[in-house]
């Protein structure tokens, strides 16, 4: 099992940023998600976030909403998410689950942490779990030996950045802009400042997500962050492909472009 610590140490030694790819479990199909995530790893992703499809994704833009809706329509359940994690972790990529809080809350925090660790997962990203409410989850994760990643945003005060960073292990997720997920034409100018402000409060790696979708943007972000997170752009390639084979080819192509970007 590759840990986040190993990934970021290796990227640092190579003098580059890590590449983090996101894909929901069950999209485009249950097995198709494993195949697509594997293609992302083969193309150069160091870390994979497997999304846990949720009925009310209120911080996601249209692309991820669409993918998640298809995953839920496919009947994707938590067992499928764990099976996806297991399949992807086997590739050697550090594999996380990204999820809204309620599915873990309902499944049981200790049970979820244990089952995720058992599947080879190395941690979670929980965008709607605030530091104030995160105590039981951090305890359960520590007990299971998995990392907890939370988000800071351009609007975060110094006090909030410190509170969030203090709850993180593995890395800190810096949301590059005020908005929902989805590729943008340019990376928000707020991102670099946020990364710098976050570094003042933590020694953990800081990764930037939201709005990054091509090699040029990946290179730009890699200039100041420890990791570059890309989600909607991968999903867009799969949504636009006429069949599974061309979808995987498009994912590989984007992965290679981004991998070159983080090394530029």
């Amino acid at each position: 099992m590759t840990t986040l610590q190993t990934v970021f140490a290796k990227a640092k030694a190579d003098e580059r940023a890590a590449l983090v790819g996101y894909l929901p479990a069950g999209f485009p199909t249950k097995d198709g998600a494993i195949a697509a995530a594997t293609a992302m790893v083969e193309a150069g992703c160091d870390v994979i976030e497997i999304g846990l499809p949720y009925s009310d994704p209120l911080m996601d833009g249209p692309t991820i909403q669409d993918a998640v809706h298809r995953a839920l329509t496919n009947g994707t359940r938590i067992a499928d998410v764990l099976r996806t994690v297991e399949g992807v972790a086997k590739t050697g990529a550090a594999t996380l689950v990204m999820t809204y809080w309620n599915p873990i809350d309902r499944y049981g925090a200790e049970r979820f942490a244990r089952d995720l660790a058992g599947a080879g997962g190395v941690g979670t990203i929980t965008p709607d779990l605030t530091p104030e409410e995160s105590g039981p989850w951090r305890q359960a994760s520590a007990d299971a030996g998995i990392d907890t990643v939370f988000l800071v945003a351009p609007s975060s005060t110094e006090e909030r950045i410190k509170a969030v960073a203090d709850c993180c292990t593995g890395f800190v997720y810096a949301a590059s802009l005020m908005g929902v997920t989805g590729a943008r034409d340019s990376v928000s100018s707020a991102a670099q400042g946020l990364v710098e402000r976050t570094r003042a409060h933590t020694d953990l790696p800081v990764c930037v997500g939201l709005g990054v979708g091509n090699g040029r943007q990946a290179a730009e972000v890699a200039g100041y962050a420890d990791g570059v997170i890309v989600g909607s752009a991968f999903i867009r390639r799969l949504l636009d492909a006429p069949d599974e084979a061309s979808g995987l080819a498009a994912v590989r192509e984007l992965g290679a472009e981004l991998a070159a970007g983080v090394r530029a």
Partner: protein
Amino acid sequence: MRQVTATEGTILTAADLAGNGVHGDDPDVHGKFGIFGGRYVPEALIPALDQVAAEYERARNDVAFLREFDHLLRTYAGRPTTLTEVPRFSEQAGGARIILKREDLTHTGAHKINNVLGQALLTKRLGKRRVIAETGAGQHGVATATAAALMGLECVIYMGAVDCERQALNVARMKLLGATVVPVHNGSKTLKDAINEAFRDWVTNVDTTHYLFGTIAGPHPFPEIVRDFARIIGVEARRQMLELTGKLPDAVCAAVGGGSNAIGIFHAFLEDEGVALHGYEAGGRGLETGEHALTLTEGSIGVLHGSRTYVLQDEEGQTIESHSISAGLDYPGVGPEHAWLKDTGRAAYHGITDAEAMEAFALLARTEGIIPAIESSHALAGALKLGRELGPEATILVNLSGRGDKDMGTAMKYFNL
């Protein structure tokens, strides 16, 4: 210590907004009512929620704010609203004495105007020029569009596509008032999806925009703010009941979707132990069909729209789509304070089916000449049942939270009119 002097000649005082140290039942510092409430939102929204909470704290202790809110309630919303005793309707309730609190007589036709005027004033204090809101039945959307027109604010309303269709009249009203109505085609295309979309707008435009939340759900401080602005319903009703009947009612009945009209009338009675509080949720086509909105009575504890509360969800935490003939009650979550009142036993919650609600809807129209909103008809149906249980000695106060003009399309179909 907060000290506010009541202004002479107003119907509203600082104490009428809960929490000025006189009620002792504000949520805690994290916005919790017992284990319920709190904040489960993207970190990006935390500063905005903190800003709203801080500004509200200043506003409710500011005599000038209270005076302006009070003035609007009296001269624009039409407060105080009257009580109406309904003896012919009561004959069907075992002879119990049923008295209605007439929120249907407010400007825009439902209690929603109370909260909206308070929050629109708050928006101006926040220095924001744009408001967004979700709406189910359209009443909160109409009220928000109204307040935005009054105060010169830009207004965008998110409304589920299904609701746009069944409440077409309210869509037209909002447009006439100058609001942009955005139909939401995601998920179940109803209120919960409209809330998701409004949150997405807010996180994108939070610098310029206030999310004028319409019910006592959502992240802290919304459950507290909306309650406080709706609280005038019960404050007036309690005083009016004492004047009219010389005593407090035996029971207070209200419909519960998100729960704002119910908390609005319940809250002033919380410390009156002899007054039973009954909330009525939408039973839809019946519990056994699975097509209902029985969040408190059949749901389980979870997190939805930023708050820990009772939720209609499956065993893996996926929200289950609700159903009700009334768009305003068609919501799979509920305000955290109701969850707390349920678990402490202070209030009791029950289901009323579509059929029972429509029967009460028609009965009030024929016996008293009042056409209620279908939402409010759930409380009326509950009062009919409760009256038969309690008998002719009982006095029951019902929150008639809105009028039924907007429901004529549904009624025409249901009754073949």
